[in-house]
């Protein structure tokens, strides 16, 4: 009976986290289109509900009632598994995101590694979808996308090392608490910029949305998908974007900490600060989508391997040297 109550408690906690995340994902699709429209002097979705807020709900309803078409020559099991993988991986990562001092589902020691591992698994949904469709455009899109995601993961990993050098722990709550005096965005500003751009590439957002470059590849790996399965890819993608924003705000913007230690600011509860920061980063993502034209593929690879990777490695050396010279290392040897 006792173990049952524990199980029930955990399920309750998980639902309490997942349902807001899913609702936020739906709202953020609306926000993305809205920001995009405002930059281009359009109105954006403004018909369904107040300010068009219910647009995503209408879209979801449309997708649910559409027929799911599975191509005859596709590999059916993997074809169906692909969107499920994308969606699941985008959601399980939220287990370790700390929303406050004790507001975290699983406070594990290697939280940041877990986040990194889950975000690097995200490539499988795309490869599986592209291969199982058994069609040329999805396959080419999947290959492009996989190469792109693997390349940019490397520099994200090195950037994480930069932050970890300053923290001395892999626990996400420790990372947040280490920024009590100064957010890491100040001393590690170049790394923040590189992280932001790599996150754009990692989530296949414009200007790096080559996997679904509609001018060349129809819709990339999603070409053969329809109905709810397409919607799951789509939601998974946005959940991933949200996750990268959360990761950026935890690593560089002080997570759930208030910007200044003032009574008025710390009056607002910790989770809201994290949500504000995630939204801020997301609006930046949306602005980039509206402003910047698409990269050429060879430029993208060159940027990842020949500019970002060396830069972030050099910055690791600089950070380590600085910390060692001024005896600021967080863990005493």
């Amino acid at each position, binding site marked *: 009976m006792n*173990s049952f109550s524990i199980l029930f408690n955990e399920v309750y906690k998980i639902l309490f986290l997942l349902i807001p995340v899913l609702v936020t994902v739906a709202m953020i699709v609306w926000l993305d289109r809205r920001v995009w429209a405002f930059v281009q002097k359009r109105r954006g979705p403004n018909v369904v509900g107040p300010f068009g807020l219910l647009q995503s709900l209408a879209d979801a309803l449309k997708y649910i009632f559409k027929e799911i078409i599975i191509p005859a020559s596709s590999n059916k099991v993997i074809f169906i598994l692909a969107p499920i993988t994308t969606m699941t991986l985008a959601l399980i990562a939220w287990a370790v995101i700390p929303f406050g001092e004790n507001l975290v589902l699983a406070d594990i020691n290697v939280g940041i590694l877990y986040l990194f*591992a889950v975000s*690097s698994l995200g490539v*499988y949904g795309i490869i*599986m979808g592209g*291969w199982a469709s058994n069609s040329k455009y999805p396959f080419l899109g999947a290959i492009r996308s996989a190469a792109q995601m693997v390349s940019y993961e490397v520099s994200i990993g090195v950037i994480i090392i930069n932050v970890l050098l300053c923290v001395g722990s892999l626990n996400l709550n420790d990372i947040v608490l280490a920024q009590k005096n100064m957010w890491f965005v100040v001393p590690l500003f170049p790394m923040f910029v590189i992280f932001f751009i790599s996150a754009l590439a990692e989530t296949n957002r414009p200007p790096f949305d080559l996997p679904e470059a509609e001018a060349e590849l129809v819709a990339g790996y999603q070409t053969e998908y329809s109905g709810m399965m397409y919607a799951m890819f789509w939601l998974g993608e946005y959940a991933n974007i949200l996750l990268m924003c959360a990761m950026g705000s935890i690593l560089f913007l002080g997570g759930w900490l208030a910007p200044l230690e003032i009574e008025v600011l710390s009056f607002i509860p910790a989770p809201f600060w994290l949500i504000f920061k995630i939204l801020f980063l997301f609006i930046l993502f949306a602005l980039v989508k509206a402003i910047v034209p698409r990269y050429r593929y060879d430029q993208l690879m060159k940027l990842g391997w020949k500019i970002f990777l060396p830069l972030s490695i050099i910055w690791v050396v600089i950070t380590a040297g600085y910390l060692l010279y001024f005896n600021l290392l967080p*863990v005493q040897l």
Partner: protein
Amino acid sequence: MIAHAVFFYLFAFIAIVSAIMVTAARNTVHSVFFLILDFISISCLFIMIGAEFLGMIMLIVYVGAVAVLFLFVVMMLNVAQQKNQWFASSKSSSHIPAGLLVSLIIFFELIIVIGGWKYKPDLLNSSTILISNTTTNTHSLGNVLYTDYIHLFQISGMILLVAMIGAIVLTFRQRAGLKKQSYIKQISRERADGVEVVNVPKNKGVKIDV
């Protein structure tokens, strides 16, 4: 405790079944997917025995990077067709003995590993590394890896670097007459470089050299 046992047997079962399916699956891409499932369940087992760092690194390195490359190669090469051709043609005979030899060696090594299990307590006692419950797994690994075994650690890194450079050298081909794009040239190109206004004499024309 019973939950622990349930999870252990679950992951162990998945690991063994997927390891068998890697060799048994007809479709090569399916066997790579089973390999990935195997990696994931083994990293879960690592995490269950408290080696959380190893488990996560296993996920990041093997599943996140190595298996993706496997998948790439297998998808691109159409291995299934080649496999059938190999076994059908008479020229293939040189591959099968080599493969058999390697698998025999691995088989005997596995037997030796299981036999060595008997000496495990002695080995654990002879080790100078203390397992403490207060420091995290990552800290204790770092403490050993960057102090006592720093040279071995560095050497293994060097070997990986050499392998990487070797792979690049083997595949890098410089062909003559290859046109390359240079950003610096593209960006620093001014109007004056591209456009030239020429006064064309009547009935004579100009010679444009390209």
